[in-house]
């Protein structure tokens, strides 16, 4: 019976969403931990990331990981965004995102009164948070392109304020993404059913 229900309504998260979600999680994990090691080679601020939290062992190893996982991040991200836009899912699930709904649902969430009765519908905070994650990763990719290829992408370089400024943009976008991940993991821990949904689809 359960299977029939699923086949009629379809899974909450189609297979391609689940696959791209976990591929993206892996790519972000590698990019962030190897990125911390690269940061340590020439810190922007008066702190370093603990070596035990980083990936790559030394600068060259970290760069190899970073510039390998970038393909996974980019290709997977393009597949996700394309399918999201073409299938109409982006519009259906994430729009509209309004400040009113955001504050109302944030208030409810902070008081522990936000309902997760229907996991197929994203609330205002989720919509804003997931759209933010998409845009932030896009900013990470664009600022990363300036750092990797500052000569070949002059327009992008100027838009981001030059090579040195792009380093700060890249760093703060990473920090924002880490903040998103922290909140995302906390919410998943509070509502474990959402993790199952992202694995099984329903």
């Amino acid at each position, binding site marked *: 019976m359960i299977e029939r229900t699923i086949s009629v309504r379809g899974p909450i998260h189609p297979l391609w969403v689940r696959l791209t979600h976990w591929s993206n999680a*892996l790519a972000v*994990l*590698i990019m962030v931990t190897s990125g911390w090691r*690269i*940061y340590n*080679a*020439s810190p922007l601020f008066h702190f370093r990331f603990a*070596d*035990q*939290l980083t*990936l*790559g*062992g030394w*600068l*060259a*190893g970290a*760069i*190899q*990981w970073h*510039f*390998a996982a970038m*393909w996974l991040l980019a290709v997977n991200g393009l597949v996700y965004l394309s399918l999201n836009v073409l299938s109409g899912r982006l519009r259906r699930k994430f729009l509209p995102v309004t400040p009113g709904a955001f504050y109302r649902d944030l208030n409810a969430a902070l008081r522990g009164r936000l309902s997760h009765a229907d996991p197929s519908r994203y609330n205002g905070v989720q919509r804003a948070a997931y759209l933010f994650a998409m845009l932030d990763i896009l900013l990470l990719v664009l600022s990363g392109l300036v*750092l*990797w*290829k*500052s*000569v*070949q992408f*002059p327009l992008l*370089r100027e838009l981001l304020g*030059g*090579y*040195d400024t792009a*380093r700060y943009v890249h760093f703060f976008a990473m920090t924002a993404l880490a903040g998103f991940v922290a909140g995302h993991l906390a919410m998943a821990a509070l509502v474990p059913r959402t993790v199952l949904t992202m694995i099984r689809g329903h």
Partner: protein
Amino acid sequence: MGKILSQPDREAIVAEAVERLAVPERRLFLKRSLSLGGLALLTGCDLTDAKGVEAALSRISRFNDRVQAWLFDPDRLAPTYPESMITRPFPFNAYYGEDQVPQVNPETFRLEVAGLVADRRAWTLAALRALPQSDQITRHICVEGWSAVGRWGGVPFRLFLQRVGADLSAKYVGFKCLDGYYTSIDMPTALHPQTILALTYDGDTLPPRYGFPMKLRIPTKLGYKNPKHIQAIFVTNSYPGGYWEDQGYNWFGGS
């Protein structure tokens, strides 16, 4: 130092020593567990095959070399800066201390030219200075992330390669340096209009700390692709590698 340690002191010292001894071991364990985690991420199954992971990462790095060669536009110029933006003092950077910088006698120095070139005669500094010179204020970007703006002057490298009758369809130009450093670059970058065989820094003879007698200045590449203290230049079709590149740094290493 004549003081005899009381019993509690002795115990405290021993306890602390034991704790300190334990720390590196713990660190090693953490490091291992993390690298195992890293391996698990990539292979998903074979946790012991560190060489396999390294080989896979190297293959992707070589793939990235090809992507970068394809992305490289031979006419696209690196940004240039006004004199007021020059970083002063420009940082010294090498894999050894400043006291170990090679000292070269400008009178006896000869630049050797080898490989796929028509004219293998060695060059004196005076002969190089007699060639047309060009000047640039560009940003030096280190693989570590930091950057600094400097001013270099010297012979456009394309012109030099033409003068020695180099095979401009060859794949690589390699460099051997007086400090044991070596590296190599792709021909399109060697022929880029901003790639110069730098003989001066900020208007004066290139000082030893910046690479006397000459440095290949390539504003489209990272610092480790800009060899200093060059002794020999060779043109070849067989991959020459490089000091850092052979240890895992990306070979193309350019922006």
